[in-house]
């Protein structure tokens, strides 16, 4: 057994501990001064103080107007709307309340405050404002085209659904759709209410109307449509709706897989339109046009197919490159 021990000597010329400490101190100082300095230079160089946003500027202007004309209700309506746009619901509600104190039947204020109450979760107060608006507006000459009245009915429908009263919701939404039957939001909500009631057939009608107006970029109505078809035990309809959900989720292969087997069946037209939309999403205009023309070969005035062909820039009379339906 070797009886050795090792000691380590400093190499001649190697920095001493003192030198190392000094170097460490210098580097720390460089970093401690340099980092904030370049940070400040970077911030000042790239930062521009642009002042208030558009909505902030609208609030400033409206506040100035109200200061000048405090008794002018129209000015306060503008201020309330500016507050609402600037995401200041409490201030907006306060302005609407002042307006309604002076003019209890101001429908703009009732609808504006009702919407803000609803968005902030004060559903009872919101329903009260909507109902007050309806009481004022429903028997007027313009009731059939009154957008504020339509919005109030829709608001009541939304609240009823939130509170688990689908029957009431369906009634209010029917009133809303009587004024604007192209309101896809109301149609979708009506579909949900009818599903909750168990009226799947009417729900399918409402939801198909909703997706006719907004065929892509909106998943919800297709999800609800799948539920409605499920209620009708229509598996083809369920597959179609799920295919469209996949399409709107951007899962194009899943969409194709769901829709292709439906071609030639009872949901053939829907599937072909869906496949056309999928082809459009892939940027394949020729394939999309083929799907649309296969629909037109059966239903020559099919609006969805005609508008699809228009989108892809192919004449409806051009010959098919594939098979017919």
């Amino acid at each position: 057994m070797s009886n050795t021990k090792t000691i380590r000597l400093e190499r001649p010329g190697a920095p001493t501990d003192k030198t190392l400490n000094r170097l460490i101190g210098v580097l720390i100082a460089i970093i401690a001064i340099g980092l904030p300095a370049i940070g400040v230079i970077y911030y000042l160089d790239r930062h521009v103080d642009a002042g208030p946003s558009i909505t902030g500027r609208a609030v400033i202007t409206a506040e100035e107007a109200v200061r000048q004309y405090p008794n002018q209700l129209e000015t306060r309506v503008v201020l309330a709307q500016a507050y609402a746009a600037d995401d200041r619901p409490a201030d907006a509600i306060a302005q609407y309340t002042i307006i309604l104190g002076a003019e209890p039947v101001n429908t703009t204020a009732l609808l504006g405050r009702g919407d803000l109450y609803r968005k902030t979760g004060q559903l009872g107060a919101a329903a009260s404002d909507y109902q007050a608006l309806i009481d004022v507006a429903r028997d007027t000459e313009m009731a059939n085209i009154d957008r504020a009245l339509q919005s109030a009915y829709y608001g009541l429908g939304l609240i009823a659904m939130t509170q688990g009263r689908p029957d009431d919701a369906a009634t209010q939404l029917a009133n809303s759709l009587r004024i604007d039957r192209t309101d896809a939001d109301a149609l979708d909500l009506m579909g949900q209410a009818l599903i909750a009631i168990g009226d799947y057939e009417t729900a399918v009608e409402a939801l198909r109307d909703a997706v006719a107006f907004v065929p892509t970029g909106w998943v919800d109505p297709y999800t609800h449509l799948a539920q409605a078809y499920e209620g009708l035990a229509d598996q083809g309809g369920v597959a179609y709706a799920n295919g469209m959900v996949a399409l709107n989720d951007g899962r194009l292969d899943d969409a194709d897989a769901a829709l292709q087997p439906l071609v030639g069946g009872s949901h053939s037209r829907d599937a072909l339109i869906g496949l056309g939309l999928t082809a459009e999403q892939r940027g394949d205009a020729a394939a999309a046009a083929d799907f649309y023309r296969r629909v037109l070969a059966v239903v020559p005035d099919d609006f969805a197919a005609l508008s699809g062909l228009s989108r892809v820039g192919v004449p409806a009379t051009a010959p098919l490159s594939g098979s017919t339906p």
Partner: protein
Amino acid sequence: MTDIALTPDLDQSLPADAGTAPPDALGPEDRRRRRRRLAILAVLSVLAVVLLVFSGWYLLFRKPISLLPIPGFDLPPMPGYSYSLYGMGQPTGIAVTPDGSRIYVTQTSGEDAVLMLDGQGQVMAALQSPDTTTDHVFVYIAINPLTAEVYVSDRPAADVLVFAADGTFLRTFEPPASLVGWQPLGLNFTPDGHLLVTDLGANAVYEFDTAGQLLRTIGSNGMFNYPNAAAEDALGRLYVSDSNNGRLVVFGRTGELLGVIRRGPAAGDLGMPRGLEIDDQGRLYVVDNTDHSIKVYRTSADPVALPEFLGSFGEPGIGEGMFRFPNAVATDTRGRLYVADWNNDRVQVWTY
């Protein structure tokens, strides 16, 4: 450091105080401390070098950190909203000096003048036509990269006006006799200083050399419908926003048609393309007026390839980062994009 093995033999030759470490020898604790110091020194040195390199790079190029060229890392996919400049009415065209210190904005409501702003958005001057007898609507604007002169298209007068960088009116650009009656709209410069002009009269695009001589005409065969803008990339490909046909048409260096990016719902498809810009990173920006967004493409290194769609930014609305019918886009060399947000009466600045 030097290791010395002390053998028993050698021990015998050592003086009486052998066995205790000499004054310059390091014990285990010293060595550990020293190693720690050296490690700290190494880390601090690396940090200091990184800081110095970044500081030098930033002071030299003035680009955002996200554009720091690190091998293996690509550019960030999309820029982010930074701030807005207000005080103009329906800004339609925009041009920016390379360092971003001067911003020229045309507007289609309010005063019929081109606003010259500083980098902070303060109005420095209003550029006006010397002709006060007719109406003027200034639409598109471009800066000559060789002379810094500012070119502005004037729709009702069917003129291209030329201003000095400080806003002084210099002259009206004179087209050749064959183009008398033209209706110039979109303006842009190629990297080598050639002027590109879109003409709504002939629905064509013209390229003029630095002396103002017509070099070529593209699209006079009825290909375009209301071409709003044209831009040329570093490889000589020409991009034309064929607005009312809802497409971007791409030509090769010799004018051959390479392809189109069409109107449609797929990613990268267009609605109504208007202004175009290519930045110093080779990215092509297309203003989609009806989609209220800016579509971003990467120009290809293959001279006959179409640009690759990278993504888009913006959505409809009045909030920050939202557009209402944007019309034009410009870039500086500091990683900033300037968008003429027409119906929001502002210029939005986005940065990487």
